[in-house]
């Protein structure tokens, strides 16, 4: 222990915290720095089921410069930071571990520039995904990634989680739609990575940053690609008397060389819950429904739609309905996109999984998932991005029941293994966060993880940005250290 540390230990730890908070307040403003118990409690949670969050001071910056200052003050005090968007993450990415400064980006929510000629929009990270698409509507453009949470999640959060959505099947996930980023590094430096040109010079740091779940720094400006609205859109709703038939239809469509804009499957339980919320005319007696959207030029859309219809019938579809009006189509999508929320009608808690399997393995994997649920005596519901093999089994439960959480976690672990055994991966869009760290070494070797950590280190040598995430303990550089930096008891 150094001499200084010894002296520090003699002084009440809260004194240092007071100085720390005072510096933050001076740099931003009293209303935009909070450290009361209520704000800290609220910012210790996101949409995930994890409860171990512990937030330090909460900052609401409004400029890049303020973010820089927060980073510098935190560095000076040896404290870590965690960025937060709308807090809809499902893997606990925004949950603060070890009382870091929570940097809430929602007040940086300006659409800075729309550059139609270059097909680019510059936005601040707090802009809500759907707000951007709505803003672009009169220009005939939209932002393609459309997570089901798009009405609330921020583009900064989308970048950090490399979020997908139903329409990412044809268009690609967030990564394919972000051209450049202004980021503030944990040491307070600003870097612009990527570029509006197609092959920016240097390493693809933008590609490395996207999906890094806030562990490499904070994005403060984002240049996103904007996509022309398609001239024709056709939405088909196929009903099936078994989930297997629906899953096989999906595989068959892909195998036939058709890449629809979206292909989503919902099982009967979900369909019933959703229908009672939106009243979109979903068939509640079908064992599974498949929502397919094709878009593009009118003839091609016609051809694809009728091929899909045929494939559907060939694989046991009992009914194929085509949405006649925009309103009908919107309602169908509203149903799909509120599916997770609608679950509470059935049970008070859910644990939403997110794995990806090869599309040809869908039917088998789903059956195995059902077996697991049965064995653990849990209700499982399935609503998923079938087109890219992205499963979302939802385990329903009531957390107030004794021993329930353990059971749910054990079942979840089995589901992950089933997916890995089928040649899949741990997460298709929600990320690893704190949820799946423990499973990372089932997909990667120690050496692989070590290399991932090197990437992290190049951006954040002290591991002060969102410590304790993604990489399992023991593989991440100075995580442990930065988690311990908080004086005991001050923010406990």
């Amino acid at each position, binding site marked *: 222990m150094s001499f200084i540390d010894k002296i520090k230990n003699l002084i009440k730890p809260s004194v240092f915290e007071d100085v720390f908070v005072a510096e933050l307040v001076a740099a931003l403003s009293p209303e935009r720095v909070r450290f009361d118990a209520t704000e800290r409690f609220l910012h210790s949670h996101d949409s995930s089921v994890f409860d171990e969050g512990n937030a330090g001071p909460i900052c609401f910056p409004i400029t890049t410069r303020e973010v820089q200052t927060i980073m510098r003050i935190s560095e000076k005090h040896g404290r870590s930071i965690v960025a937060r968007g709308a807090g809809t993450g499902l893997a606990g990415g925004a949950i603060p571990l070890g009382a870091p400064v929570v940097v809430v980006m929602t007040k940086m929510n300006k659409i800075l520039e729309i550059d139609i000629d270059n097909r680019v929009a510059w936005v601040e990270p707090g802009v809500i995904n759907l707000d951007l698409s709505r803003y672009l509507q009169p220009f005939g453009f939209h932002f393609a990634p459309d997570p089901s949470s798009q009405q609330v999640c921020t583009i900064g959060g989308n970048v950090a989680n490399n979020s997908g959505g139903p329409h990412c099947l044809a268009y690609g996930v967030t990564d394919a739609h972000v051209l450049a980023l202004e980021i503030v590094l944990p040491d307070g*430096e600003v870097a612009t990575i990527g570029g509006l040109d*197609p092959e920016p010079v240097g*390493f693809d740091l933008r590609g490395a940053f996207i*999906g890094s779940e806030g562990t490499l720094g904070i994005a403060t400006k984002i240049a996103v690609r904007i996509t022309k609205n398609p001239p024709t859109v056709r939405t088909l709703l196929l009903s099936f008397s078994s989930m297997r038939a629906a899953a096989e239809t999906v*595989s068959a469509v*892909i195998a036939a060389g058709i890449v629809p804009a979206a292909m989503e499957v919902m099982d009967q339980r979900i369909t019933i819950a959703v229908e009672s919320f939106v009243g979109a005319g979903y068939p509640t007696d079908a064992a599974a429904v498949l929502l397919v959207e094709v878009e593009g030029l009118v*003839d091609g859309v016609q051809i694809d739609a009728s091929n899909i219809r045929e494939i559907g019938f060939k694989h046991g579809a009992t009914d194929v309905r085509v949405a006649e009006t925009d309103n009908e189509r919107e309602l169908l999508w509203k149903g799909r996109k509120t599916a997770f929320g609608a679950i509470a009608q059935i049970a008070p808690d859910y644990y939403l999984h997110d794995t990806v399997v090869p599309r040809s393995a869908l039917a088998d994997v789903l059956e195995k998932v059902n077996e697991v649920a049965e064995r653990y005596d849990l209700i499982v519901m399935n609503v998923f991005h079938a087109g890219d093999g992205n499963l979302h089994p939802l385990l329903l439960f009531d957390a107030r029941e004794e021993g329930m959480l353990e059971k749910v976690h054990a079942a979840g672990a089995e589901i992950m293994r089933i997916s890995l055994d089928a*040649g899949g991966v741990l997460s298709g869009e929600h990320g690893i966060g704190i949820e799946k760290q423990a499973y990372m070494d*089932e997909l990667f070797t120690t050496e692989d993880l070590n290399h*991932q950590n090197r990437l992290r280190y190049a951006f954040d040598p002290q591991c002060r940005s969102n410590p304790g995430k993604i990489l399992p303990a023991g593989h991440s550089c100075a995580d442990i250290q930065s988690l311990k930096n908080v004086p005991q008891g001050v923010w406990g």
Partner: protein
Amino acid sequence: MKATLKIDTVLNRFAEAVGPSLPIAIEGNRTRWGLNGLLKPGTSVISAPSGLVEYKPEEMIVTVRAGTTVQELDTCLADHRQRTSLPDRGGTVGGAIAVGHNDLHKLGKGSVRDAVLQLRYVSAEGKVITCGGPVVKNVTGFNLHKLMVGSFGTLGFIAEVTLRTNPTPLRQLWIQTSMDPKIIFDTLQRPSAILWDGTTTWVHLEGHPPDVDAQYALLTKSGKVYESETGPSLPAHRWSIPPVDIFSLEKTLMGRFVASIGVGTVWAEQPQEERKLDRATLTITERMKKQFDPTSRLNPGRNLGNWS
């Protein structure tokens, strides 16, 4: 359960060849050998193993070793009417990814970085590292596989990749016109390339036959259009600029040029002025190189950001 390496002997032999010490370089077909600095003389040069590992047309993914030529890959995919976004100009798959340049049909085929799903490389320590995942959608862990695209073999030597494939459109058509390329870009829904040399515009249309015909018809409405055998011949140097800058750029800087409208790639007689990284980006770049190749043994002389 721990992940165990399911890596075949071919990759292991490649890893052994790379070894843990002494400078070493990797070559593909040397079609882009001169880019980004000259190799330090005296460095021994190896090449990546080649061959198709697995092709699942119904999954639209293919796994190949990096030394396979893009042409071989294309031939194999063509049997199932599929393709990838990698450009074929005589090089290897590993080279195409290491260089990261996109095909001139980028608007239709997509970009190289989006095609790479999983990647195995041999590290400076001579170990095989796996990153990404063999499915079309994946956010598991850090995106090392993205980092490898365009890194010119300076962080690791690409051994094997799993790529996304796409259906090859049923009809493809080159057309030629003197119409304003900007108007063409705004008019067409999804052309796969629009090339412009300052006077003439070449458009590559693809898709369902009736769609291609409809787009063609649409263009004939606004001006004179001719079918063409191929696109234009491309000058040697490659520029990368924001797409609309081509209309304001001083053309004498480029000499004869062909610009990809809506993309920002320009092929020109003159090379593009050196592009610089900002200070913070350079710092990350240097740290990255240090992390992955502390002794600078991989492709010594190649330099993407002026690290020392």
